[in-house]
């Protein structure tokens, strides 16, 4: 199956939720829609499912216009951020419900429910009510409900966001395996760059209702076409610092000279915005070519086994992602280091000029 959105837009009242979007998905593809909260991810899913009618544009399935078709007639399954199950039905009945409603015979239902329950490790819980399950088990049930019918389009709207860290990891790996065996278009939304990278496949980066960039996920990660994409696709958001490229040397920040190495050699002289991922900034010199940036520590936060150090170089705020748990004195004057070949170069309008990966996006 091919699902295409042709110049689809959605306006509610005077608010534009989706600006003209063009997207195509193929059966067997795994697609991640990455964007911040309220970027329009859910609206896109609803449009694809047929829950909402686009204001303009058409939605095609295998080239056939299905724009006005009711969601019941489409082979769609959806998993939500909240754990959506029928509260008064057992896990078994919950999983069976889409099949029952489509008039499948009892024996087939029994077989399919057990198969699906096995994949999601719900076998021992089939007699329980949703309220008697943990959050992770409730979401597994909801996922099973979506998987049990052979939907051509499987939509997952931030399905793991309400689960704790451990469960999220666990379920994410399982989901990846499930997706791979699935003969369907899988579309998964998330706000987390790490999650998008782990799921792989193709990515659609969305911000404020606009599709910013599409392509294979690692490709987009290494070549964010605009500063906005780079910001959305980095956690913590990518650092930006002003600078210039001269004839035989460059400079970033306040007169920090950098040698023109690698991809920087091909950049024509002028003023640019340089972007540095927080994990490419180091607290110690890694090599002789590193640029040394003098900064003042403003805040240090620990997340998991990493430390995020928020610093300021004159007017430019920077975040450094340091491994391990370390404490830093607030107000301390320190130096951080970045290798020039790690710099993403953007023009003043925010379009990518050169990336460390060396490829310019088309």
């Amino acid at each position, binding site marked *: 199956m091919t699902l295409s959105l042709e110049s689809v837009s959605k306006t509610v009242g005077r608010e534009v939720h989706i600006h003209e979007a063009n997207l195509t998905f193929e059966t067997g593809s795994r697609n991640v829609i990455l964007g911040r909260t309220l970027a329009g991810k859910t609206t896109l899913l*609803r449009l694809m*499912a047929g*829950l909402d009618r686009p204001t303009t544009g058409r939605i095609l399935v295998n080239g056939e216009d299905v724009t006005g078709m009711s*969601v*019941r007639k489409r082979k*769609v*399954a*959806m998993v*939500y*951020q*909240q*754990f*959506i*199950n*029928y*509260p*008064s*039905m057992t896990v078994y009945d919950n999983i069976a*419900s*889409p099949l029952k*409603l*489509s008039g499948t015979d009892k024996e087939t239902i029994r077989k399919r429910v057990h198969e699906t329950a096995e994949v999601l490790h719900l076998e021992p819980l089939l007699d329980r*009510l*949703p*309220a008697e399950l943990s959050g992770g088990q409730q979401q597994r049930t909801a996922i099973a*409900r979506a998987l049990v019918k052979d939907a051509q389009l499987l939509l997952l709207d931030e399905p793991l966001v309400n689960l704790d860290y451990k469960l999220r990891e666990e379920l994410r790996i399982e989901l990846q395996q499930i997706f791979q065996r699935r003969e369907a278009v899988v579309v998964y939304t998330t706000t987390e760059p790490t999650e998008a990278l782990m799921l792989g496949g193709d990515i659609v980066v969305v911000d404020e209702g606009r599709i910013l960039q599409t392509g294979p996920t690692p490709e987009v990660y290494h070549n964010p076409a605009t500063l906005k994409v780079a910001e959305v696709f980095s956690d913590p958001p990518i650092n930006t610092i002003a600078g210039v490229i001269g004839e035989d040397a460059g400079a970033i920040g306040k007169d920090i000279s950098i040698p023109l190495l690698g991809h920087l050699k091909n950049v024509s002289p002028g003023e640019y915005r340089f972007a540095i991922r927080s994990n490419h900034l180091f607290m110690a010199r890694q090599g002789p070519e590193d640029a040394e940036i003098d900064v003042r520590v403003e805040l240090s936060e620990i997340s998991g086994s990493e430390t995020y150090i928020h610093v300021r170089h004159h007017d430019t705020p920077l975040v450094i992602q340091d491994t391990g748990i370390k404490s830093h004195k607030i107000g301390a004057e320190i130096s951080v280091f970045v290798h020039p070949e790690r710099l993403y170069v953007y023009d003043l309008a925010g379009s990518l000029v050169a990336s460390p990966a060396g490829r310019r996006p088309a």
Partner: protein
Amino acid sequence: MGAEWFKETLTDSRLHDALWRQFLFSGLVLLIEMPLGVGIALLMPRKGWGVSASLVTLALPLLIPWNVIGTIWIIFTRPDIGLFGAAINNLGIAFDHTASPLHAWITLMFMEVWHWTPLVALLAYAGLRAIPEAYYQAARIDGASAWAIFRYIQLPKMRGVLTIALLLRFMDSFLIYAEPFVLTGGGPGNSTTFLSIYLVKIAVGQFDLGPAAAFSLIYFLIVLLFSYLFFQALQNVGKGEDR
């Protein structure tokens, strides 16, 4: 010496009648008001100006003092000048709640339903509004009918508020006093003499303070018993529902 009063009260056949009358009244109230309230809540708009308009309209009967409610209905159902009473008499039906026990009950039930169904509707509406939109979407994707959505999503999700509505409506209707006192005064005969009205008759009307004191203790124990039973039921409400 007090024990005799209890014995006298417990064997008082008029008290037994009042008690059964009270149960009948509360039972009918719940049977009518609960489904009607849920039905109204389901029909209420979910967005736009209609929300506040319907909320205010529903809340109006709840804002009127109880004795005023009784007075309003006295006038409303008067066979000569009352809008309701005169209209129905003009249709050829001799309707008079002061003469016929059945008519007195019908009038009381109408008044009670008009007065208190909005509370049930408001509670049910609050319960409905708390259901995330995603449930309805999921049901639409599954192809569930409107009945299935009501039976398997809305009703289970409203279970908590509906139990509270049931509790409140039972206790309130069991303790009802002001409205029937004003509207019928317990008559005609004793046909609308509920427990509270009977109690006041004994205590203030006949000045039998001894039996009245015993009676009020028994009345209190009945209410306490039912409150306890409902409280126990309420404790179990969370089960089978989403946390």
